[in-house]
């Protein structure tokens, strides 16, 4: 017996191991909460919330300890300088320099710093080499313009004492009312207050203080709770916090505003929820601390991969916004309060104020205030500061086929051939990390990708592209030349002791390129030259992943906050811009990989911050193949557009797990409305390239993809619009109808650019209909059969069987299309256009088209076509709205044979019934010509339509078609 006991023990162990292993194969479906901090686990979040709670609890008796020293105020050239004094004790006041800038664009900027730290007059603990100043270089990565100071801003005369009033903005209709004690600022437009800073008194600048070592316990009870001031531990990592507590916080109130949008990235509704608990509200603040969140959950304020601390507040006919320029970890609490002037008549005259409370772990307090009044103006002003969306290469807005991983170069070729075999268009195929030799970037696996060039050449035969992944972690291996170079040139990020930081990522032990370092950027640029990154041709583009940065063994899966970057800035200070510094370096690298061959770069990034739109596209990271994730992708993409980074998409099909055929089909039908349209899948999932899906789903998916391609002219025009005025590419209801209160919270339908196309993706299983909300009483027409829907302020049920994409056209638009399917979007270049003229109630329509070579920067020198199409008084005209440049004529010549092959007029006047031809007058033609026209009447609630065959007008020409 004695002999058998160990045996049975071993069996038990074995069994339990087997059970454990069994547990592992059950796919996890929820995020690992324990890996990420809650507010109460983040010292400064806890402190700022407590500070706010304390202030609220004291009510009117609370006085914010910040006072603007009236004698310090100076106003000059649109800028107000002064010093805020923070009362720490009766006789200790901390000096906080204040600068309020009134910008020509109409935005105002409030910056508060700390004098002692500006002067370097502090001591750091642990002999830290970190910088003493508060981080003030975020703008170096984020802002590109719009900082021109207002020439007309003036101090308002006859201001009561204790206040300073500045008139600024267009026609000086904006007004900043700065109260000195306690310090606060109200921003008014047309006499009405829209944005209030420190109205609640939550302003909090944790000034530097030395750590007073207390001997023994409980001997000397200090007034304040210091438990979170110094070293902070989480998940086995300790942050040494050499500068102690240094957070900045501020309450920003939007009086009369019920809805706030923005501050991506969160898997949540478009209209942000309250965060202080209660039914349907969040318990935690919205967090922005870029992180690689595994299997993220939905309806959550939890942080994700990117952060844009830009918020729009919206109410009927007014939109305002704030931009919190701080790259450190940031949380935002939102509370809405409804007040009624007459408590007995609740709802009547009741107004809702939205009060937001922002706080960041370190850095300056730097906030921009935008007063609108339209969402378009907000987009434009914000875009002037942070940059507009890059006009992408044309292929980038077509369909991308990705998978982790296409396993060999032959595999890629095979997929490429199969798309052609099944006549499904696609433009780009992607390679995830497995293409590399042992996860060493800039190398190819010699066994699986022995001949990348021939693979790229095959893709190029149909002008398709390849995107390969390049991440910021560089395998720590002596034999790896890139690693060697980076180390020897000293271009990597350092740990708190100034040694090269070593962490764990895909390749195992890795170092991180410090793209804050100009020398590192220069080196990074050199790595992408075709003769350096062997195996790449000019049709290869880049995917920057894991740039939060993701560090598998780091705190919250990222870098320790006390790591040091170039200039000895702590990682804490720069964390949220880390991602875009990599993208910035990659962007510069892709501009000119071969001397003389300058091309628009294409980069996909996972991590981002404000400004990323200038250089890249984003996707929503590692989502899951569930209906809920499909649904969540719509508000997420819309919200990114609101926040100025509209080139966004989610993995079509869902990254983790296998979608059903129905889910995959619906996801394609939804995915064609993402500005960035890419299918992607985890390595453990079944192959799901669209041609592999059994009929009828294959055809339905193909139709969806072809619909995207058909509308590419409209998409490219929308991208162009975004690139010149910051408008979202797909727009939410409130953006399109800012006056319609019932539509403000709607985030499950979207408008494509200014085309009037309104799509409502089906995101639920076994749906056969979809309810589309219409704001106005314009006629809307079903895209596929011209069924008419009309009726303002209500939802209309439209059929949505599996094969249908619910899609309406709002009356009053001209939609440009290309109807001929091709293998790739590049091969549609010379195809003729179809113009769909959807008449409004008044028989008018308007639309535009932007075209260029889709590849180079020649458009900056006029090499483009920009037309406005207008239908009024029975005539469709095409007018030039472009500006001529040195390359215009040359470009127009190449486009001379590209024409309009068809004009479809939806819901034409009945009088056209007998008409069989139209008169065509093209500029420069010797005489007018005619083109045949056919009128088709329809029944069953479907609108009539007329089709002009081959009017034979050039797309780049000015012309007029008379009906």
């Amino acid at each position: 017996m004695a002999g058998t006991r160990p045996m049975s023990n071993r069996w038990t162990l074995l069994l339990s191991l087997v059970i454990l292993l069994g547990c592992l194969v059950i796919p996890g479906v929820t995020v690992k909460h324990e890996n990420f901090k809650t507010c109460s686990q983040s010292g400064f979040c806890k402190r700022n919330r407590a500070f706010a709670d304390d202030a609220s609890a004291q009510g009117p008796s609370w006085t914010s300890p910040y006072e603007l020293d009236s004698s310090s105020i100076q106003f000059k050239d649109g800028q107000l300088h002064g010093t805020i004094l923070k009362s720490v004790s009766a006789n200790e006041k901390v000096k906080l320099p204040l600068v309020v800038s009134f910008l020509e664009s109409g935005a105002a900027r409030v910056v508060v710093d700390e004098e002692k730290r500006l002067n370097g007059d502090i001591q750091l603990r642990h002999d830290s080499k970190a910088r003493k100043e508060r981080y003030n270089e975020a703008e170096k990565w984020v802002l590109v313009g719009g900082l021109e100071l207002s020439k007309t801003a003036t101090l308002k005369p006859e201001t009561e004492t204790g206040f300073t009033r500045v008139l600024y903005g267009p026609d000086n209709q904006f007004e900043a009312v700065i109260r000195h004690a306690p310090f606060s600022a109200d921003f008014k437009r047309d006499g009405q207050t829209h944005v209030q800073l420190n109205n609640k008194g939550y302003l909090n600048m944790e000034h530097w203080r030395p750590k007073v070592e207390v001997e023994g316990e409980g001997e000397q009870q200090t007034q304040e709770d210091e438990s979170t001031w110094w070293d902070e531990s989480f998940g086995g990592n300790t942050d040494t916090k050499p500068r102690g507590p240094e957070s900045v916080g501020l309450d920003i109130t939007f009086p009369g505003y019920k809805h706030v949008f923005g501050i991506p990235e969160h898997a949540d509704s478009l209209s942000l929820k309250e965060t202080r608990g209660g039914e349907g509200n969040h318990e935690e603040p919205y967090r922005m601390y870029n992180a690689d969140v595994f299997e993220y959950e939905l309806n959550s304020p939890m942080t994700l991969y990117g952060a844009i601390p830009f918020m729009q507040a919206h109410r009927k006919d007014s939109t305002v916004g704030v931009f919190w320029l701080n790259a450190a970890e940031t949380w935002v609490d939102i509370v809405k309060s409804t007040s009624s002037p007459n408590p007995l008549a609740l709802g009547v005259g009741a107004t809702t104020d939205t009060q937001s409370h922002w706080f960041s772990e370190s850095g300056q307090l730097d906030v921009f205030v935008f007063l609108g009044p339209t969402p378009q103006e907000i987009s434009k002003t914000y875009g002037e500061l942070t940059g507009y969306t890059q006009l992408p290469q044309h292929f980038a807005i077509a369909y991308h086929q990705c998978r982790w991983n296409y396993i060999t170069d032959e595999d890629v070729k095979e997929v490429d051939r199969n798309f052609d075999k099944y006549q499904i268009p696609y433009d780009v195929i992607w390679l995830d990390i497995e293409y590399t030799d042992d996860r060493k970037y800039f190398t190819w696996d010699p066994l699986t990708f022995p001949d990348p060039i021939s693979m790229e050449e095959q893709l190029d035969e149909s002008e398709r592209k390849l995107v390969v992944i390049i991440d910021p972690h560089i395998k720590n291996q002596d034999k790896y030349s890139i690693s060697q170079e980076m180390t020897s040139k000293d271009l990597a990020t350092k740990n708190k002791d100034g040694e090269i930081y070593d962490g764990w990522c895909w390749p195992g032990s890795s170092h991180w390129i410090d793209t804050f370092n100009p020398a590192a950027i220069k080196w990074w640029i050199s790595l992408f030259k075709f003769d350096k990154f062997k195996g790449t041709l000019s049709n290869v583009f880049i995917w920057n992943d894991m740039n939060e940065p993701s560090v598998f063994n780091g705190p919250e899966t990222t870098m320790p906050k006390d790591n040091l970057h170039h200039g000895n800035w702590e990682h804490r200070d720069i964390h949220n811009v880390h991602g875009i510094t990599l993208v910035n370096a990659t962007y510069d690298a892709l501009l000119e990989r071969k001397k003389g061959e300058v091309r628009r770069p294409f980069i996909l990034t996972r991590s981002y911050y404000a400004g990323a739109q200038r250089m890249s596209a984003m996707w929503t990271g590692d989502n899951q193949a569930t209906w809920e994730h499909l649904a969540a992708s719509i508000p997420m993409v819309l919200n990114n557009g609101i926040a100025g980074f509209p080139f966004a998409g989610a993995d079509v099909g869902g990254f983790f797990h296998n979608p059903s055929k129905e889910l995959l089909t619906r996801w394609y039908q939804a995915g064609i409305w993402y500005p960035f349209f890419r299918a992607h899948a985890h390595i453990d999932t079944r192959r799901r390239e669209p041609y592999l899906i059994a009929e009828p789903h294959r055809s339905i998916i193909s139709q969806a993809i072809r619909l995207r391609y058909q509308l590419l002219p409209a998409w490219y025009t929308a991208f162009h619009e975004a690139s010149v005025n910051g408008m979202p590419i797909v727009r939410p209801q409130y953006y399109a109808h800012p006056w319609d209160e019932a539509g403000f919270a709607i985030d499950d339908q979207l408008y494509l650019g200014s085309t009037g196309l309104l799509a409502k993706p089906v995101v639920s299983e076994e749906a056969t209909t979809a309810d589309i909300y219409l704001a106005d009483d314009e006629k809307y027409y079903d895209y596929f059969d011209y069924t008419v829907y009309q009726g303002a302020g209500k939802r209309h049920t439209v059929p949505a069987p599996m094969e249908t994409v619910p899609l309406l056209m709002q009356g009053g638009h001209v939609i440009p299309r290309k109807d001929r399917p091709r293998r790739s979007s590049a091969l549609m270049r010379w195809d003729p256009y179809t113009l769909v003229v959807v008449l409004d109630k008044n028989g008018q329509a308007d639309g535009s088209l932007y075209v260029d070579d889709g590849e180079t920067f020649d458009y900056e020198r006029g090499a483009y076509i920009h037309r406005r199409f207008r239908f009024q008084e029975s005539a469709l005209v095409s007018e030039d709205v472009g500006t001529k440049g040195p390359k215009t004529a040359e470009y127009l010549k190449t486009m001379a044979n590209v024409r309009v092959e068809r004009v479809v007029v939806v819901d034409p006047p009945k009088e056209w019934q007998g008409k069989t031809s139209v008169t065509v007058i093209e500029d420069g033609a010797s005489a007018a010509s005619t083109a045949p026209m056919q009128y088709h009447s329809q029944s069953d609630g479907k609108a009539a339509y007329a089709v002009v065959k081959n009017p034979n007008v050039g797309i780049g020409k000015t012309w007029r078609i008379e009906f």
Partner: protein
Amino acid sequence: MILPQGSLFLVSIAACSTVVAAAGDASSRPRGVSPEFAKFYKDTTTFTCISHPAIQIPFSAVNDDYCDCPDGSDEPGTSACAFLSRNSALTPGERPGSDDLELASALPGFYCKNKGHKPGYVPFQRVNDGICDYELCCDGSDEWARVGGTKCEDKCKEIGKEWRKKEEKRQKSMTAALRKKKDLLVEAGRQQKEVEDSIKRLEVEIQAQELKVNDLQAELEEVEKQEASKVVKGKAAGKVNVLAGLAKSRVEELRNALMDVRKERDDTRARVKELEEILSKFKVEYNPNFNDEGVKRAVRSWEDYAAKGTLEGAVNNAQDRDLDEIAKPDDEKAGINWEQWENEEDGCEAGLVYQLAAYLPSSLVEFIEGKVLFVRGLLEDNGILPKAAETSTSESKVVSEAREAVKSVEKELENKQKQLKDHRSDLETDYGVGSIFRALKGVCISKDSGEYTYEHCFLDQTKQIPKKGGGSTRMGKYTGIGSVSVDVLNEAGEIVPEDRVTLQYANGQGCWNGPARSTTVILTCGEEDAILKVAEDEKCVYSMHVTSPAVCPGGDEGAAAPNRKDEL
């Protein structure tokens, strides 16, 4: 053999050139129209849509780069009707004809004359897209509009030449493939015949064997009868002998049981070892990525487990040596020398009892004997002692020899019957048409692909051998023949299903986080047995494209099927 092959080739060339010649004559055909469809384009004033004769358009609308016919037949030479496909959802605006007409292209594609090569169709979506599709249209006529300055020169001469060369090779290869197929069929027939012959032989042998068994059985009974009387008389055979016999059988039994347990232990150890290896590898290779709690827990548990000692520490060599000793059969040198005990004459206690009995009152003798029998019965009933009747140890050598003889012949018979059964079931097994795969059974082919070399042994198994080192992985054991429908392109570039013979392999090595590996080998006609490519369709479900002459069409499988002939 060479002659007919050559002439076949000439005929095909001739066929080609007549087509080309015909094409040359009909220069009046609109662009992109093949001779097959020329008749629809004869009327030069009105054009009638091919599939919708009710729709007529002026002939000037043919190839005017605008789609008028619901079947696209008015645009044989442009891409204007390329959207007429189930892959495009149309709106009323671009739908040619009225709403309810079914839209499907009447033409297979843009017809390229390809003078100097064979004519071909290019899908309409490729016409005038700026790309020279020489593979389908070597004369470059698909890019007639020269969009964006595209110029596709006529390359038919060189492409045609190349193609003919290839075609000739292909033809040759096909002929060779058919020859190989024939060989395979012959070989399969031979093997089948071998099996059939074996069956016949076995049937005869089994009959003989059965007779032999009967004879020996009879002999045994006879011997037993004789011996039985001896045993009854000679109780003197001795209790020690009986006991020795009992002990011997008991020891044998225990030894066998021990060996079984030991084998079981070794198997289990091997499994534990494998598991420990998996886990230690897992610990090293797992991705600390995403801080997956489950994984971390598993790793920690493993570390705890390993700290308490792994299998390596638990293995006791001394114990194994002991076991080896015990496992050896008993003889003079090892264990107990049964020989000695069995041949021992009574002279000890047991014998004494009987000797003593002579002096005792018979009632007492009966009592003692009764008690002995009772105890023995008790022991027997509890399985501690084998039943006396069953013991052969008390048998004489003659009986056991006779019994052995019966046993061995019976065993032989059993073997033969099993062989017969196997052969018969083999004959019933599906080896494909003409049993052709019988000839390929066990033939192995392999291919390098990416990180692995893949191996396919026909009707046996599929394997994956990593190039970077490490053991090979079985991707499935043969389970049977099947079929699968694959999508192929027809001449017009349309997807059409085609049935392929498959060989199915299942229950391969299990996958981490997935099913047991399985492979579908999809066969295509080819001269050589070769793996074309291997794909992982989903996690651990592979498809292997393999060429083999065995599935080439043609060749007379029926005629070569030997069993029919034999039966005649």
